[in-house]
Structure formats: C-alpha cells, structure tokens
C-alpha cells in the first residue's frame, strides 16, 4: 500500500498525463501466468500464459468449465498457490503469500465451527492486533450489514448454507481488503438462495469499495454481477474472450429478461459453444 502511495506522489510531481495513468494503476495485474502441476502422469499445465488487468473498484467475473484453472488463478492471486510462472501484482506489489489487503471467500464457507458468528467475523481484526472490543465493534457493524443481528452469538452449525456464506463474506470484509476474491461462493447454494445472495452482493458492492474478482461457472451469474466477464477454456486454462458488461447499475436479477442482457448472454454462449465443440472434437480424435 505504501508502494502505491509513493507512485502517486511521484506522478504528481510530473505531468498531468502521468497522474492520470498512476491513478489508473490496475488493482490486479496478471501477466503471463502459467501454473504447472506435478501429477502421477507427469506434468500438467493447469493455466497457460494468462494475462489480464483489473481496474480499482472493478467487478470482474471469470467463467469457464470445471477444471479450467479459474479457481487456481484466483488462489494464486490470493497467494495460496505457489509456485507459479509469470507476474502477479496486487496494488502494485508482487504476490508472495496471503496478505491483509486481499480477502477471499471460498465455495464452502469454511467458518470456524467453534466460534460464534461475531467471533468468526472478528477473527481477522483480532489477528491484526485489534483489541477484542474494536474487533467486536467491526464485527457487529458487518453483522448488521448482512442482516444477521439475531444470530450474532449463534454457532455456524445452526445457520443455513446461505447464512453461513453471508458470514463468510462479512468475515472476509472485516479486514477491509482492497481486493476481494470470490471462488464460486454461491455454487453450493440452491437456486432461490443463490438469487437472493446475488442481489445482496450487488447491494453490498455499492457500499464497499473493494475490487472484486468472482469465479463462477454460471454465465448468468457472471453477466448479472460483473463489469467485465473473462471467459476461460479448459485444458490448459487460458482466456478465450473478454466481454464488457455495460448494463446500467444498480442492477438486480430482474435484468435477466432485458434484450441487452440476452444479447450479451448470446455472445458469451457462442464463445463457449464454439470452444466446447472444439474440445469435444479434439477428445474424439484422440
């Protein structure tokens, strides 16, 4: 964070044009990212020279079939997946491990079962040496924001899947991350809960200023949420296409019947279908 601030200062000293470029320094820069796994059959290229930038405050969705390496890319940005080839810069500094300005929400809530909702959310602030009182205050604010005041002292096993995932999101936000990574956070929820959670996230997103990278295999979810959708292919994972979603905000799930939405969806599906056919023919000929 101090690194990016000094860049801004330097830029201020020089021409106005570079001020603009400094302000537009991407929140995340991924360039030529390759990840190779050692398996029992030798080496497998999971991710092949993936490059993309995410602007500060942008909401980017990454879609692709299961096994295309989209989660691996996210874990790498989070600092959980090492080693990798290529460069990843978050807020201008290279990723070498988990860091406080990057938060993550997983497909499973992974709440600490022995901690109440409040203690779960307060965990991050506590680990960053906030007092119990301060941490609880942060937690209580977030609990109000996710609408679970009645459950502040409940243990995770008494909550529904959707509630647990809301707590997991609040827990990730408690450290006030600049970047929030979400790995299919609604993938394990039923369709109705998922729709509610998507609307909640859209509302939440207007209140927090974090940059969000959201991985999903659901094309509808991606278009509904994102400013930009990255479509990935499998084996090895690479980015097929970027689709800018210029639908007006604030959005809600009702947008899914608008013609502009549908034409975007058709574009995405065409890319996916073409890739699917290619992959199918390839596996057929093998």
């Amino acid at each position: 964070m101090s690194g990016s601030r000094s860049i801004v200062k330097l830029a201020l000293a020089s021409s106005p044009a570079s001020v603009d470029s400094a302000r537009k320094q991407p929140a995340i820069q991924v360039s030529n990212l390759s990840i190779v796994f050692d398996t029992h059959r030798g080496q497998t290229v999971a991710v092949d020279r993936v490059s993309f930038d995410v602007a500060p405050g942008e909401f980017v969705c990454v879609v692709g079939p299961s096994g295309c390496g989209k989660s691996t890319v996210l874990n790498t940005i989070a600092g959980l997946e090492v080693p990798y080839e290529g460069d990843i810069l978050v807020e201008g500094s290279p990723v070498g491990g988990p860091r406080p300005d990057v938060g993550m929400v997983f497909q499973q809530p992974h709440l600490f079962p022995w901690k109440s909702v409040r203690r779960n959310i307060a965990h991050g602030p506590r680990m960053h040496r906030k007092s119990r009182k301060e941490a609880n205050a942060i937690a209580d604010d977030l609990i109000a924001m996710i609408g679970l005041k009645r459950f502040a002292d409940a243990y995770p096993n008494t909550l529904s899947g959707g509630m647990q995932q809301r707590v997991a999101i609040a827990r990730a936000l408690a450290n006030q991350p600049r970047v929030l990574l979400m790995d299919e956070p609604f993938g394990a929820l039923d369709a109705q809960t998922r729709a509610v959670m998507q609307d909640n996230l859209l509302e939440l997103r207007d209140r927090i200023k974090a940059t969000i990278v959201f991985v999903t295999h659901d094309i509808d979810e991606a278009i509904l949420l994102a400013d930009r959708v990255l479509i990935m292919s499998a084996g090895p994972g690479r980015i097929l296409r970027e689709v800018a979603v210029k639908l007006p905000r604030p959005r809600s799930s009702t947008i899914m019947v608008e013609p502009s939405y549908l034409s975007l969806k058709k574009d995405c599906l065409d890319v996916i279908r073409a890739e699917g056919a290619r992959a199918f023919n390839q596996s057929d000929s093998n």
Partner: protein
Amino acid sequence: MQDGTSAPQRIAVRSSGRNRRPDSARLRRLNILVGALSLPLFVGLWELASRSGAVNMVLFPPPTVVAAAVLEWIRSGQFLVDLTASLYRVTTGFMVGGALGILFGILTGQFPVMSSLLSPLFHILRPIPPIAFVPIVILWFGLSEAGKLFLVVWGVFFTVWLSTHIGVQKVDRGLIRAALMLGTPRRQMLQEIVLLGALPYIVVGLRTAVSISFYTLVAAELAGTFAGIVYRIEIAQQNMQTGQVMGGLAALGLISFIADRLFAVLAERTVWWR
C-alpha cells in the same frame, strides 16, 4: 404444491399419524416398565437359581450373600482403602498417558518429520496388549506403584496418541486456508485452528481410554500389590470368598460405568460448539 392432488395424501398421512400415536405412546411406556424391571428380574432369578440347589451355592452365591459381603467390605474400612488405591492408579495413569498422548499426537500429526521418526515405532508397540508387559514390568519395577502406573499409562497413551494424530491430520484444510487469508500467522495456526479442529477426535480418544485404563488396572493389580479392588477380588478368590469376588466385580463395573458417564458429560462440554 397447493394443487388438489396432494390433499388426499395429506389427509392419509394425518389419519395414520392419529392412529399410530397412542400405540407408540403405549409401547414406549411398556418399554420403560420392562427396562425398570430388567435388573430386579435378573437378580431375583439369580437368587432363586442359587437357593434352589440347581447350582453349587459356594461357586454361585446368591445376591443376598454378595450384598452381605460387600457390606462387610465397606464396614471394615477396607473398601475405602481399595477404592482409593485403584482410583489413584486409574486417574494418575489416565492423566499422564492422556497428556503424553495428546502431546505426541500433536507432534506427529503436525510435523511430518516427527511422524516419520515416531509413527513406525508407535505402530509396532501399539498392538501389544498391555497385559503382556506384566512380567517385564515386575522385573523392572518390582511391586512398586510405578509399575502399576506404567501399565495404565501404556494402555492410555497409544489410544490417545492415535486419535490426536488422526484428529490433527484431519483438520479441514479449508479452515487453514481461510485462516491464512484472514491474516492468521502460521506460528499461531496450532492454537487458533489445529487444536480446536482436532478436539472432537481427542475427546473421543480420551473417552475410549477411560475404559482402557480400567482394563489395564486389572492387569496392574493382578501383577501383585497390597490394596485395590482387583487385588481384593484376587485375594477373595484364593480364600474361596465367592461373595466377595462378585461384589468386587460389581464394584469395578459400577466405578467404570460412572467414570464413563462422567466423561461423556465432560466431553459434551469440551466440544462446546456441537
């Protein structure tokens, strides 16, 4: 859901429920009654069989004789001495063996080097029944208390070690990743996540070890001692005091049962989030 087709079904379910409920209540009451009669019935039959002359009354003394022997045992003050000696061995052995088991379980579960170093050894020693160590324990420790404790500790240790080891290994990797992302330092991972994650397994291991500590107590006291419930059973057997033998067995069963119940209550509070 609200269409007409489901209505008859709902009625059918409700009517069968209405018919079943009094039946199941009656059945439950009957079960409670039978359960309450179980022990008196058994003791009564035993008394009858023993007094009828169908079996040798010296070898199978009736419950009244056993009760008299137990009363005499308590009145003489010897029972308290025996109980204290046995409980001391069980609790000390359990605590020392349990503490060592948890400590080594964390070491081998958390650090692969420690596991490579110790697990093969532990896996070879673990299946040897503690009773088999009685002869060598007598050589090593004579008739001292240390030998008795050694046997109980030995029995408890491996059970607790294995369950702790497995518990530590089975801690959800997702929890650790989540904790890392929230800024939990790796050196605090043990106290923040691993210990609590393994706690349910550790508690199960400790509970199994409660009954194991009583098994090994038997071996320990048969190895030669001067007081203890099993020692009293053995002495009574040598004197043909079969009433005292059975009283001792009943006492041992009762104590072991109470210990297990107490631990079950304790275990429920230890894993407080369940």
